[in-house]
């Protein structure tokens, strides 16, 4: 007698320990084998784009914070860049340096969460807490500067909300020195752990042409082996003044573009960010008013602009249409997580349930940004 079998539909989320927010994955499974994954999003949708149309240009900045809440600095920065380009505002050099320092610190903090929670998805608790300990120090630096630990509202159109604290440079240098050993520690504890490699190598392989066709950017694209980094390839701000490497996946433990590669790109990028911050701290102009270029009233000419920054997750783009009023006519965000979440079905097909968590962790999504 043949046993009757049927496919089971498993709803993973919206409340689940490792969906990184309120994401619902509808899994079709045969035993442990996943045959189809359908992501359902929108649980955090709060009409950011509609809100923007009712706000003045400078009032939008705090709203951008709430999209990618792990990398709020970049959200501010991308928006500020877009409006500055639309109005033709030149920001002082000191502001640019501080923006770069803050941005790269934010990148370390965000990658620390990504790497840590990825370990957590695989079942390793300890590296997560080591990384959070160091992230906490970055947040303290941010708190010292602008008073907020998560949603900064720091980078304004044409300037910054506050100048840095007198102790900031010294404390940042101290932090950077103490951070380098943490990366080694995480590598020893996690990256080269046999079980970890078994769980992540050859899992969720993303070939390069598929990645490009899906519009993947950031570590997800670089993990597939293409050295494409907006900081270098579409330079904005003052990134051309710094010397840093664009990290790509090498397929060291398995196939090129697998989960381990994407993970390891993030680990190494933290060290590259340390390099950039060190150079920026050395070159930082000593004096200067960070608010001198902030316009009293923002009324850009009629037109449209698309600017993009390299957020820790990929390309964060702002498309702003202006009709010549004080409010934007349309603000459209290109959130990298939104684009990356789309590849889940392709990546997970034919894998086991446990691999879903590994793959989802490796593309590093933030639901606040997916749903806006």
């Amino acid at each position, binding site marked *: 007698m043949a046993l009757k079998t049927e496919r089971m539909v498993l709803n993973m989320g919206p409340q689940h*320990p490792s969906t990184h927010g309120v994401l619902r994955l509808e899994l079709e499974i045969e035993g442990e084998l996943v045959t189809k994954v359908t992501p359902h999003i929108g649980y955090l949708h709060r009409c950011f784009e509609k809100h923007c149309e009712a706000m003045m240009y400078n009032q939008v900045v705090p709203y951008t914070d709430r999209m990618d809440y792990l990398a709020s600095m970049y959200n501010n920065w991308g928006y500020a860049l877009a409006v500055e380009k639309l109005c033709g505002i030149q920001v002082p050099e000191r502001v640019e340096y501080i923006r770069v320092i803050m941005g790269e610190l934010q990148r370390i903090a965000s990658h620390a969460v990504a790497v840590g929670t990825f370990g957590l998805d695989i079942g390793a*608790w*300890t590296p997560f807490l*080591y990384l959070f300990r160091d992230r906490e120090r970055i947040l303290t630096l941010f708190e010292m500067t602008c008073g907020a630990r998560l949603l900064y509202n720091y980078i304004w159109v044409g300037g910054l909300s506050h100048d840095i604290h007198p102790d900031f440079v010294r404390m940042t240098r101290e932090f950077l020195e103490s951070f380098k050993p943490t990366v080694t520690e995480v590598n020893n504890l*996690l990256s080269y752990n046999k079980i970890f490699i078994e769980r992540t190598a050859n899992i969720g392989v993303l070939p390069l042409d598929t990645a490009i066709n899906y519009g993947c950017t950031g570590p997800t694209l670089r993990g597939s082996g293409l050295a494409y980094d907006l900081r270098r390839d579409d330079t904005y701000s003052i990134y051309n003044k710094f010397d840093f490497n664009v990290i790509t996946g090498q397929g060291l433990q398995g196939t090129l573009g697998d989960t381990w590669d994407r993970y390891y790109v993030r680990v190494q990028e933290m060290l590259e960010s340390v390099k950039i911050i060190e150079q920026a701290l050395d070159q930082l102009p000593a004096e200067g008013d960070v608010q001198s270029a902030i316009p009293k009233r923002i009324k850009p000419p009629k037109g449209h602009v698309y600017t993009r920054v390299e957020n820790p997750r990929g390309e964060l783009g702002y498309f702003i249409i202006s009709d010549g009023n004080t409010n934007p006519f349309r603000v459209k965000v290109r959130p990298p997580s939104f684009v990356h979440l789309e590849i889940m079905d392709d990546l997970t097909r034919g894998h086991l349930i446990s691999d879903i968590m590994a793959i989802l962790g490796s593309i590093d999504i933030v639901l606040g940004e997916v749903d806006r």
Partner: protein
Amino acid sequence: MYEFLNELLGNQILAMLLTAAVPLVFILLFTLFAVWLERKVSAHMQDRLGPMRVGWHGSLQLIADFLKILQKEAPVSLEADKPLYNFAPVLVFAGSFAAFAAIPFSSKLIGSEIELGLFYILAVSSFMVIGILMAGWSSNNKYSLLGAMRSAAQIVSYEIPTALVVLGMIMLTGTLSLTKISEMQTSSFWNWYILGGPGLSLSKFLLIPFMIIGFIIIYISTLAEVNRTPFDIPEAESELVAGYFTEYPGIKYAMFMLTEYANMFAVSAIVSILFFGGYQSPVGYLGNMLGIHWMIPFEQAFWFISKGLFFVFVQIWLRWTLPRLRVDQLMALCWKYLIPYAFLNLIIIGIISLL
């Protein structure tokens, strides 16, 4: 112990209940201590302090937690199969509690001195599988079901290498009685089976490497049997929320936790009996030196619990260091590596013991 109490009280039922009460109290106290230990050890490994508020270094935290969990409302899902759902935690706990009956804490402190001790423990601990399957099925939750299936597959598979290593030890010692195996390793750590067992013959030295391999195999497989990291896939919180006990609240949940920690100690105890002399002291007894003979059983209990706690500590240590395996890798480890090596080890031990 039952005979002693029976003579003392002259009442079989009372003696039976008292005998049963000792391991129960031990399990409760041990669980309180082990959970506290786990939290403190993990905290210090992760640069944290862990519980610090209730009592000295949070030592009373678990009592507070236990009181909270006792007071919890216990809602049952409407779709659940209620009789099975309510019976499952009891059955799971009964399985691990029953194993404690045959574990010799010292030469005197043993629930029942049965000849088939090892066989009995292997048999009753498989009881748990039924309870876990019951829990997973009756909860009417897909996560529970998946967790229960994983758990059943895992426990049944890993019993084979465990049994093979135990078989080798039985061939060597010629007995199934845990007390007798412990008695063979008396007087000094030199006589422990991890160092080839008692005596000074050639076969003792030949046995040492295979004993170490056997120890590693049984330690890994018992780790898997009690669902601890890196083998905690049945309750992998990042995949299956809490596995087979996802739907259990309050005191029923506490029973699963109690079982988990009781099992941790039970398997540690078996490992220490087989390879590390059980309740025997590694260096000799203070009671013998001072001439106070009634002290010896207490010393033995001390050594036994210390050894058990040491292996529990290693389990905790592993849990907070290693990531988790995937379900197919877990099975591959068992069937492709542990079982063949266990068989080979069994054959070699057999040949050596014939020498």
